[in-house]
């Protein structure tokens, strides 16, 4: 009865893995650098780092971190000393960095004397509280790409662009840019004297100027100066194929352009109506030194090294960066790239992106407002006022710290109840004997109990515990049940208002029911079809139909998102082929929801099919034959024999499938992304948004997670009882 041997093997395995993990001791002359560069920029960085290694004899480990995970990795790693010594990131997160102590004062890398070596705006962007926090490396801002074949005149004002409409062929558009994206709208905003974020950290995209700017873009779209729903891919394609006279884009477009069209780059024009320049946001990429790195001369030295003249030259030539080091622009080879020089000139006029952490919360409401206006669903004023209200809702001050008494009481009560039932159970007659008998069995389950408790339950409980706290990182405080209260009262708004818990819950339920119904329906039909005794090539059919199961779900989601693309997606190609107008999938709830649904149905039906196939094999043939002899028709046999025998076997799978669908984050987040306007979000993706795009309200997100858990737990318990009854009936 001994399980000692596998236990030992397991322990050995774990130890081996642990040893594996701890391998690689650190030496003093070694620094780690994080970045999110790809392609040319990465190549340039490697070259610069290699030179540093040779010159200083320091091993530089470069790590390319996926952009999506960049900030959360920094937040997780740096405070625990697992982070890099130096990292390269946009200055826009400086507010977060300083607030959370992720960066150190970089005066060592960029001293008073060095300031003059860099572009003035870029240094200003990195200065906060009188300290310089990073070495400016490169700038990115929007500029105007002009197709010099289509446009021969000078473009000085936006009105000049508008006028192109008259001279261009109908197949070409005067101006293409991602009009529904706030980042691209900011230059228009500035041209009307408005701002996105006020100096007090308020949502400032309201009032006359802002309304006029949005109205202008609406009119541009109406007049076919700007195409409908231009995605980045469409903008690029229009320009590459010579169908757009002018596009607004950033330096990243340069790497996509070859010699298809002759073009030049120039700073954004002026809006003649207001006489103001369209000043875009300026992103300054900088080398930041972490608190760990600040203690290493090699790390500080590397940050400095990145910004010096030779490095800047390499980054400009190899990495095609708009470097912030002045001396590089004196280099004749660098100056030869007129496009880079133009971006450099544009940067001088640009407004550094505010570093306030509150900026992050402006994007989503502002995007939604612009989209609504462009779609003609709302007037600019109404849309922008609503956006402000949403911003204020998200950024509402954390509730006051209440006394911890209610939470303690509840926790205490729960513990007491647990203890009471425990003791009652223990006092029950025969319990002792039962326990004695159970003891040897525990040797079988102890590994699983420990593993699951430590690595699954503990993190979940820890996650759940954060639901009693509020506030972003670094300023969390205890708020008791306030998060729950706010969620359940829809934060004082209408109970079924936009973004309320109840509305999202309804969507989630609709999502789950439709999905599971489709999974079961299709799975059942295919399972029954594949079980036909006369069907040939069963194995082939089966393999082809199982295929979707074998594809990772995020690949599926991203691929389907591409298939629903307005201009290049396969779905609209099919619609066009059958003579239907193409659909803008993500601008209406019904179509966006359908897109999500189609994706998830594709993803999930093979599982139910296989389960059905398996369950079918367990239905005794003679029962069906008996029914046939009894004169039952094919349908009656299915309805009265197969189905009642099949269903109890399928129910556990259906239940599990429902739970999975209820929490199917990947599809909703990656396909529709909640579009339009967050209406297709389900509870899980809503929770994710609170945690990662709305001022890091982890506590609020955790409360969502706990509510999801409670809902599912209660629902499955109720369903489970019914399943047992259904099973008992058949057995």
């Amino acid at each position, binding site marked *: 009865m*001994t*399980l000692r041997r*596998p236990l030992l093997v*397991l322990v050995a*395995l774990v130890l081996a893995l642990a040893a594996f*993990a701890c391998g690689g001791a650190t030496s003093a002359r070694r620094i780690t650098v994080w970045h999110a560069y790809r392609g040319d920029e990465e190549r340039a960085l490697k070259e610069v*780092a290699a030179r540093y290694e040779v010159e200083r004899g320091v091993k530089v480990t470069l*790590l390319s971190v*996926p952009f999506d995970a960049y900030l959360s990795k920094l937040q*997780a*790693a740096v405070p625990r000393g*697992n982070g890099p010594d130096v990292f390269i990131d946009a200055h826009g997160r400086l507010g977060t960095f300083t607030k959370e102590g992720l960066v150190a004062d970089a005066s060592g890398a960029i001293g008073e004397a060095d300031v003059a070596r860099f572009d003035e705006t870029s240094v200003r962007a990195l200065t906060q509280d009188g300290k310089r926090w990073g070495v400016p490396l490169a700038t990115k801002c929007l500029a105007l790409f002009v197709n010099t074949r289509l446009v021969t005149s000078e473009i000085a004002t936006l009105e000049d662009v508008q006028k192109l409409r008259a001279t261009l062929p109908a197949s070409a558009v005067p101006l293409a840019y991602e009009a529904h994206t706030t980042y691209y709208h900011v230059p228009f905003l500035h041209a009307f004297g408005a701002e996105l974020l006020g100096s007090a950290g308020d949502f400032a995209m309201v009032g006359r100027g802002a309304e006029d700017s949005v109205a202008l873009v609406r009119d541009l779209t109406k007049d076919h100066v700007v195409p409908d729903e231009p995605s980045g*891919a469409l903008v690029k394609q229009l320009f590459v194929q010579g169908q757009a006279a002018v596009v607004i884009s*950033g330096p990243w477009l340069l790497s996509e352009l070859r010699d298809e069209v002759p073009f030049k780059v120039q700073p954004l024009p002026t809006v003649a109506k207001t006489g103001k320049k369209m000043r875009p946001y300026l992103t300054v990429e900088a080398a930041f030194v972490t608190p760990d790195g600040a203690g290493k001369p090699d790390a500080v030295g590397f940050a400095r090294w990145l910004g010096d003249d030779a490095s800047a030259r390499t980054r400009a030539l190899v990495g095609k960066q708009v470097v912030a080091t002045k001396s590089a622009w004196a280099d004749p080879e660098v100056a030869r790239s007129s496009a880079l020089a133009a971006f450099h000139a544009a940067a001088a006029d640009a407004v550094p992106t505010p570093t306030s952490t509150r900026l992050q919360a402006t994007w989503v409401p502002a995007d939604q407002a612009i989209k609504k206006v462009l779609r003609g669903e709302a007037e600019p004023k109404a849309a922008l006022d609503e956006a402000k209200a949403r911003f204020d809702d998200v950024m509402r001050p954390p509730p006051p710290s209440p006394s911890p008494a209610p939470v303690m009481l509840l926790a205490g009560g729960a513990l007491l109840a647990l203890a009471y039932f425990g003791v009652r159970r223990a006092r029950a007659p025969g*319990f002792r004997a*039962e326990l004695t*008998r*159970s003891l040897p*069995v525990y040797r*079988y*389950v102890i590994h699983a109990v420990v*593993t*699951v408790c*430590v*690595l*699954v339950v503990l*993190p979940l409980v820890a*996650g*759940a515990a954060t639901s009693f706290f509020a506030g972003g990182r670094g300023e969390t405080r205890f708020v008791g049940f306030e998060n729950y209260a706010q969620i359940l009262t829809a934060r004082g708004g209408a109970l079924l208002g936009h973004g309320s818990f109840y509305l999202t819950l309804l969507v989630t339920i609709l999502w789950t029911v439709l999905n599971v119904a489709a999974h079961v329906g299709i799975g059942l039909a295919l399972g029954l079809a594949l079980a036909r005794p*006369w069907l040939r090539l069963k194995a082939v*059919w*089966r393999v082809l139909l*199982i*295929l*979707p199961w*074998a*594809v*990772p*779900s*995020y*690949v599926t989601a991203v*691929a*389907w998102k*591409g298939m629903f693309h307005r201009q*290049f997606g*396969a779905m609209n*190609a*099919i619609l066009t082929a059958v003579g239907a107008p193409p659909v803008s999938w993500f601008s209406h709830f019904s179509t966006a929801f359908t897109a999500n649904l189609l994706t998830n149905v594709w993803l999930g*039906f093979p599982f139910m099919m*296989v*389960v059905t196939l398996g*369950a079918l094999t367990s239905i005794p043939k003679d029962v069906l034959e008996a029914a046939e002899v009894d004169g039952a028709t*094919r349908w009656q046999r299915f309805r009265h024999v197969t189905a009642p025998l099949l269903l109890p076997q399928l129910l*556990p*799978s259906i*239940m599990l499938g429902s739970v999975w669908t209820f929490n199917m984050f990947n599809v909703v987040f990656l396909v529709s992304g909640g579009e339009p306007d967050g209406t297709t979000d389900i509870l*899980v993706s809503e929770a994710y948004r609170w945690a990662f795009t709305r001022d890091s309200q*982890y506590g609020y997100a955790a409360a969502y*997670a706990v509510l999801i858990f409670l809902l*599912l737990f209660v629902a499955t318990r109720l369903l489970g009882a019914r399943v047992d009854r259904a099973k008992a009936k058949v057995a």
Partner: protein
Amino acid sequence: MDDKPSVLERVVVHLLLVGAVAFALYPVLWVVSLALSQGGLSGTGGVVPLPRAPTLENFRLVLGTTDPDGAWLFGRQLANSIVVSLATAAVGIAVAIPAAYALARFPFVGKEAGVRALLATQMFPTVASAVPLYLLLDKLHMLDSRGGLVLVYAATSVPFAIFQLRGAFSQIPVDLEEAAMVDGATRFQAFVKVTLPAARPAIAVTALFAFMSAWNEFILAATLLSREDAFTLPVVLQRYVGEHDAAWGSFAAGAILVSVPVMALFYVAQRELVSGLTAGGVKG
């Protein structure tokens, strides 16, 4: 059932199957076409997705990534994925098997509560546990390592594996073990020499699921891994979808490279998949 199906039945069944296969294959073809095209989304098109100018450039790009020392980075990352996924399957199964066996065979105090708790872990959105997991692995000094990743993956795969295997074990007649014990085996020997081999299909399928969950996971991997040469393939794939632009061609090529091994495993295991899932019954 009838030996001779009506023509109508034949037609309906075949229409259904053909329709379903078209539905199942279309996105796959679309991704393949994307992978063989230059110029991202606009490089493919039409109702039947065909690359405008077929090229293997995307595959060359994805496969050909090297690190600064010129070592074959994609190879390393492929190896990571394989090692991590295999280890996850092995550890997950090793932990789940004894527990599932106990649940299938013995009554014991706390069994009901344990099963309920296991089921409950499946209901908690994982979004909530990423940060605590990071802190935990940090304490264990297992951050940035395949080992840590394996432990986390294995642990998350354990509850489902236990449900699967419990069903499988409870379908294996107790007689077999008793026969072995009468033949002179200890309970443990009976378990290892008789029950385990008899449950092989279900164990294979469960291992496949654990393997797949590790092979496809990217959120935790992106959080817990910090060295490029330690990345698993999904993290690499995710990098192709960046801030300003999506490298659709590379993404599609990578997606195909990631999916092909799992498809191959499914093909090999398809028979066991049906019987193994049945045995497991995915009983909740």
